[in-house]
């Protein structure tokens, strides 16, 4: 099977998964205690007739499965329903909030990859050296410290104490520089980075620590491989062995972990958005839950699930691309 067919195959495979997720969320969201109509009309004088009218208006009086089918019919046309609470289409709400979250998650991943791989390799090469011990302590700290706490500490040090970096909000690079009064794209970029830096590190530290540990273990194992012995016996320079022969084999598990950790990263993003006051999907999600905004909860869950599934598919494809032993999907 070619790479293109494999890709298509994996995406088709994902459809039942997403349908399953949608059913589950739909049921769960509707089982949540609390009545949305009552919540909406809080503090107002309403008659039972009025409530019935509102329920009919939003279709809340119809059986669950009918409402679900309606919802799915809308979904395939790109309509995620209407938020009761905000009186706006869910699609619009998500569209306005997804950018910052994606920016945050992707930059955190970029930060984690760029730092963890070289550090992991050096730690593997200098196994049991002081460098290795220090990096292992840092990694242990990274995996065992909650990201929001790291975020708060970063704010205290770099924003409050030193005053070097802003502590809240983001500059959206996709808005024009004029919106922020920046004099040009260069300043715009610098400002984007300045705002992004702290939340990115706060969210990325966990990923960095996890990946660094895996990279170290994998490189140590790979460096003991028979193929490394072979390369040495044929006079391949040690740095080529490190960068090429041992490296490429060691990256395969990294790819898998990057994909699977996407869920942790998305979860972490919710907290980081709170700590850094970023108007992203995470905060919207939180508000939707508090307000029992069913449609919005459904919409965001579906979007996050889809992002996760796509992430996993991309990592699978990358894996298949790098590891020639993977026969595209035939072994399912």
């Amino acid at each position, binding site marked *: 099977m070619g790479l293109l067919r494999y890709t298509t195959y994996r995406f088709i495979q994902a459809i039942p998964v997403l349908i399953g997720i949608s059913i589950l969320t739909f049921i769960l969201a509707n089982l949540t205690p609390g009545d949305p109509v009552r919540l909406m009309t809080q503090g107002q004088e309403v008659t039972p007739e009025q409530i019935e009218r509102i329920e009919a208006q939003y279709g809340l009086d119809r059986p669950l499965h009918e409402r679900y089918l309606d919802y799915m019919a809308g979904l395939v046309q790109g309509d995620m329903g209407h938020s009761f609470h905000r009186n706006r289409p869910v699609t619009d709400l998500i569209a306005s909030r997804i950018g910052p979250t994606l920016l945050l998650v992707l930059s955190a991943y970029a930060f984690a990859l760029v730092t963890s791989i070289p550090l992991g390799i050096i730690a593997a090469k200098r196994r049991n050296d002081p460098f290795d011990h220090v990096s292992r302590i840092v990694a242990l700290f990274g995996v065992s410290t909650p990201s929001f706490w790291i975020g708060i500490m970063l704010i205290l040090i770099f924003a409050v104490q030193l005053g070097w970096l802003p502590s809240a909000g983001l500059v959206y690079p996709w808005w024009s520089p004029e919106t922020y009064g920046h004099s040009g794209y260069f300043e715009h970029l610098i400002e984007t980075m300045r705002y992004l830096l702290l939340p990115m590190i706060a969210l990325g530290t966990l990923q960095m620590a996890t990946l660094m540990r895996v990279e170290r273990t994998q490189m140590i194992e790979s460096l003991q*491989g*028979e*193929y490394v*012995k*072979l*390369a*040495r*016996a*044929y*006079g*391949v*320079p040690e740095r080529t062995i490190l960068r090429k*022969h041992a490296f*490429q*084999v060691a990256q*395969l598990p990294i790819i898998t972990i990057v994909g699977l950790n996407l869920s942790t990263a998305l979860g972490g993003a919710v907290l980081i958005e709170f700590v850094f006051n970023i108007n992203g999907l995470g905060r919207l999600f939180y508000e939707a839950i508090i307000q029992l905004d069913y449609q919005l909860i459904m919409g965001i869950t579906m979007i996050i699930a889809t992002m996760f599934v796509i992430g996993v598919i991309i990592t699978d494809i990358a894996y298949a691309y*790098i*590891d*020639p*032993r993977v026969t595209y999907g035939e072994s399912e």
Partner: protein
Amino acid sequence: MSSEPLLRVENLKTQFFTDAGTVRAVDGISFEVHEGEIVGLVGESGAGKSVASMSLLRLVESPGEIVGGEITYRGETLFGLEEGPDGELRERDDMLSNEEMRTRIRGNEIAVIFQDPMETLNPVFTVGGQLREFIELNRDLSGKEARKEAIEMLREVGIPDPEERYEEYPHQFSGGMRQRVLIAMALACEPNLIIADEPTTALDVTVEGQIIDLVDELQEKYDTSFVWVTHDMGVVAEICDRVNVMYLGEIIEQAPVDELFHDTKHPYTEALLNSMPRPDRTVGELEPIEGVMPEAISPPSGCRFHPRCPDAREVCQRVHPENKEVARADGYPHNAACVKHDVFDVGYDESVPLDKEPQMTASTPSAGDDGE
């Protein structure tokens, strides 16, 4: 038998410094390889053959280290120690540096064929790419020439459709075909000496036969010398010119192959030969060697083979026999390390035979009593 051997190993010692103690994996072995010869290094697993062969390239992995002896290859010192002014041993000035070992010796002078063709090739690179990389490194050829040479070598070792297979990955090759690729790698670098470390052990018998025929044929064509590491006396008989038998880090018998088979001097070699399937014997007549080889970390006293030796006598527990010339054949010495043949009589004949049941003493820790 030219004057100067291609490779001379003298009193080589390689040890592993583990938490449990020092393992004397190779404990003072000496042998020579002459131009165009296939020299066998035979013994059960754990005898130190592989460590010895890796020592030749100075590729012993930590915690292992070559601690003594001398390795000379074509007049160059691959390893050699001398006493410094402070009385400590230090590396000799004429010993090649690590960089020189890498650029001048490994691959282009001495190449290796490894044991496990399944694990040895890198799974994420094409077979051709790996072959080409080694050719480029060791033969000063441009990428394009190296590619042509790689395809030529694949053809030479009997891989059909070499142009197409060049682009394939190791997992697309069978075990036998991968072993052929490893042979192609060794030959393609045009070395003068190839170390074959149990190259047929992982293969089934039919493929093993094919590979041995192939090596025989190529050896004649290229006149490459070989150090052939194996535990299989059958392979030795088929391919080697001269043989070194190893037991627990020591060479206990060395002789030209016919001499070794027909006038065996050492009881261990005899036991190895008796345990080998031969056409003139039924399986029922095979005599497995009694017991298992003890650990090299605490070898038995005296002759290291005495707990398992059918001829062992009391003296064998005390006297460590030297590997000495006991006969000559085809201009080569026939050496054996056994007090039976000791010219300075240590009293073997008068000594009392040891009990058939191997004794468990402090000095014979894992003397195998698991044989019947």
